[in-house]
């Protein structure tokens, strides 16, 4: 019989990045007793990596901005697969959530008249991203962390959840282990909020940290909740490509927002070559106009470098595939050229993009004020996730909520830069609020220790196979390489089929992995457990990708290169079948109300 450390909370929040912290704060404000699970130390979650800013129609820099324009931009960027209710709430509430951060201590960059400064970003019509240089995520997570420090929240650091627990058909809690000693923790909770982030570690070139193993996606799926839009993975157009050890590290879109341009090895600014029809009216048709836009000229249209991420990533891939890439298989991203426009360019770049300057100087010996960077696409974000109610963020499993990247709906087929930091504030807050409300209506659930015992037995198996099978790292590595190659930016039916075959073999291998040592802070063991989630989400991504026989947003099919209007009418929803198989259904997108349709028409 395993021994458990037992904890009881009204609301258990799993994940302590921006969404989890905001949810925990809100639940605590509502009077619920709150437990907050961090996979790492508090304040280290992936939100620290967000660079460019948080999107909110504050209209501080351009007074033509308002929630309606933000809503229309988000829907257009998501190719209209978005949950329109979430897009509406998000656009309306983001300004309040950003102002609230200022009241909690965030120090955003300022406009000349002392208000919060906003910058241009891909797909946003007006300068909309409140920011702090290029370290906005760090500023936000620190603000939330510091604020939460003084709230009645029980923080469980370096704790990983391996399974949700149910009482009949409702949520009852979760089972996890603490990293330091490997002790099992049994959490009883009336409501659970998933805020675990994404699935980026399923791919080999990624901007995501080791934590991003699709835990929340797999936890929800295994517990019977529905997922949706899992075919939509965002490959950020600009990750570092050289040297090899830093491949995939993010280069903020803010570089392009500040005037950075993309150039191929022939010196051609190739982004002007292919501007999609639905963005033509909003895009500059010459370089001079693009530059004026980045410098705040309200009459100029944005340069094509600031088109949506899916489009820019594919344009880069095309240059590389057709032999016009940079020496290490990317293209050039150049901000140093603004020296010909600004007398204080060097200082300006260091002020606006300090961590990019630092990152390239230290990791690649490149001075970005003097030389171009080499960049290429990197796995960045998953639009898909737990299917939720737009208002409350509750999943299809009563008592289970999801917010931030692990939730789905807001971004549709493609997320706009800056919309994830606002997403986690708006829907983190809503998830916390409604989880607390839900918990208030419930009696304490019964936690079935038999369920927990079985989870523990399986979790400890890698130790019992000591010396038997291979280690977990090789299997993880092979999975990532396979997914990158076969279910990456460009997909084809035959390749996805090969991926599904490969997943079967990898699953067999994973079943046999063994780990050495004991349960104390043992990364081999942790990887063996995370591997299960990676396998689960990889199969779901592959199957959803096979089902969507068109190209849209983050999902590009070489064998179906065009958008198909018929595919615009549904989301692909994924559930775990009775035999453990992945079940896919096409669920129609509800009809948008007239007032929202009108907003979209007015902003065409």
């Amino acid at each position, binding site marked *: 019989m395993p021994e458990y450390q037992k904890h009881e909370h009204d609301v258990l929040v799993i994940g302590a990045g921006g969404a989890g912290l905001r949810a925990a704060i809100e639940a605590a404000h509502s009077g619920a007793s709150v437990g907050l699970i961090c996979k*790492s*130390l*508090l304040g*280290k*979650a*992936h939100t*620290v*990596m967000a660079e460019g800013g948080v999107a909110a129609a504050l209209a501080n820099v351009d007074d033509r901005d308002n929630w309606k324009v933000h809503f229309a931009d988000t829907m257009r960027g998501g190719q209209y697969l978005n949950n329109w209710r979430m897009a509406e709430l998000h656009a309306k509430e983001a300004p309040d959530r950003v102002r609230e951060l*200022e009241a909690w201590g965030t*120090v955003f960059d300022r406009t000349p008249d*002392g*208000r919060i400064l906003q910058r241009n970003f891909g797909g946003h019509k007006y300068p909309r991203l409140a920011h702090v240089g290029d*370290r906005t995520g*760090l*500023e936000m997570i*620190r603000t939330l962390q510091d*604020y939460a*420090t003084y709230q009645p929240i029980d923080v469980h*650091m370096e704790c990983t959840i391996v399974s949700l627990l149910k009482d009949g058909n409702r949520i009852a809690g979760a089972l996890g282990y603490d990293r330091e000693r490997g002790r099992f923790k049994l959490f009883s909770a009336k409501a659970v909020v998933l805020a675990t982030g994404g699935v980026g570690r399923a791919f080999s070139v990624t901007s995501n*940290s*080791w*934590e991003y193993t699709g835990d929340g996606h797999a936890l929800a799926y295994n517990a019977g909740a529905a997922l949706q839009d899992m075919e939509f993975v965002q490959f950020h157009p600009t990750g570092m490509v*050289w*040297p*090899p*050890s*830093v491949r995939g590290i993010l280069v903020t879109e803010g570089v392009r927002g500040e005037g950075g341009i993309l*150039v191929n*090895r*022939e*010196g051609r*600014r190739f982004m002007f070559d292919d501007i999609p029809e639905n963005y033509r009216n909003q895009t500059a048709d010459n*370089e001079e106009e693009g530059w004026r836009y980045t410098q705040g000229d309200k009459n100029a249209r944005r340069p094509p470098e600031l088109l949506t991420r899916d489009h820019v990533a594919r344009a880069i891939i095309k240059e590389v595939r057709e032999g016009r890439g*940079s*020496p290490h298989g990317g293209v*050039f991203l*150049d901000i140093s*050229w603004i020296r*010909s426009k600004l007398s204080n360019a060097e200082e300006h770049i260091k002020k606006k993009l300090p*961590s990019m300057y630092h*990152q390239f100087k*230290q*990791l690649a*010996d490149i001075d970005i004020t*003097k*030389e*171009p960077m*080499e960049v290429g696409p990197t796995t960045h974000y998953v639009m898909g996730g737990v299917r939720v109610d737009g208002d409350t963020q509750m999943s299809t499993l009563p008592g289970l909520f999801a917010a931030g990247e692990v939730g789905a709906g807001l971004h549709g087929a493609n997320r706009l830069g800056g919309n994830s930091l606002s997403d986690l504030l708006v829907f983190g807050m809503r998830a916390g609020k409604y989880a607390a409300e839900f918990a208030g209506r419930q009696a304490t659930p019964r936690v079935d220790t038999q369920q927990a015992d079985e989870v523990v037995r399986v979790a400890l198996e890698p130790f019992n196979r000591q010396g038997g099978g291979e*280690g977990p*790292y*090789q299997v993880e*590595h092979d999975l990532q390489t396979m997914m990158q190659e076969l279910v990456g930016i460009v997909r084809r039916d035959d390749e996805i089929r090969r991926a599904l075959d490969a997943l079967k073999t990898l699953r067999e291998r994973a079943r046999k992995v063994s*780990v*050495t040592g004991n349960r*104390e*802070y043992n*990364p*081999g*063991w942790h*990887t063996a457990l995370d591997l299960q989630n990676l396998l689960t989400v990889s199969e779901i991504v592959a199957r959803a990708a096979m089902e969507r026989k068109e190209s849209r947003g983050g999902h590009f099919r070489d064998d179906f290169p065009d958008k198909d209007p018929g595919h615009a009418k549904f989301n692909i929803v994924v559930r775990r079948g009775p035999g453990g198989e992945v079940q896919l259904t096409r669920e129609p997108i509800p009809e948008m109300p007239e007032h929202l349709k009108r907003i979209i028409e007015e902003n065409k």
Partner: protein
Amino acid sequence: MTAAKNSLASSIVESGQRAALRSDTSAGTDTRSATFRVWRGSGGAGQLQDYSTKVSEGMVVLDAIHQIQAEAASDLAVRWNCKAGKCGSCSAEINGMPRLLCMTRLSELNLNEPVTVEPMRAFPPVKDLVTDVSSNFRAKKRIRRFTPRPPDAPDGTWRMQQADVDRVQEFRKCIECFLCQDVCHVLRDHHLHEQFVGPRLLVHAAQLEMHPLDVLDRTGDLKESHGIGYCNITKCCTKVCPENITITDNAIIPLKERVIDTQYDPLAKLIRLVRGKSGKREAGRGKRDGGRGNAAS
């Protein structure tokens, strides 16, 4: 395209190719092996153990540690997250120097000798390279929270000039890697964790004290319970900060001046009693230290 644009574009490409070429040759770590002497152990007990692994261009010490995990020691414990110098998780001591594993390139180390990798020594060891840094989180709770003045505008917002937030933004760059705590002799050698909050938390206090919106006065706490007097400004913390925050000069010394002005100067103390924090600000300001701001008063 005009001729001018052509020349700009071609100079971008040329300069990019030059940079690529340089990065290919400058690393000086073409495929060969290096030895890493890594601390292994749990609790207090342990020893340094040698691991040999292949090194390739551009590698950082964290890459080597990961390779060792994959090849020879799957249970080798190390904290890391972002691998881009932004989260401050992978703090350790490399050849005796407190550094981030992810930002220390092998090309800057002498690989003819074993590279020693040890945990931060100022914190209780957990296992291998992982230490118990929880004291830092507890210390933060002791510093009184951010407390803003009433909003400046009817819509609940404030007005601050960029020049007034520059200093605070410097402090808020902190990634909480705790390397400054590791190198601070008050904590490392004298173990005064309960009496002295350490440089990281003094930077935290400084950003609160110099925050243009904050109205609390923490100088009494700094003197009495945060132990600012223990710092004798040897500046070791500033030297190891991976974010290049000028911890001693910009944060600790101005705080010490404020403490002296408000806690030891009877006139200033009287003003403070009468006027609250703004009185302290007047007294403590001397030079521009970010503490001004167009206070609502």
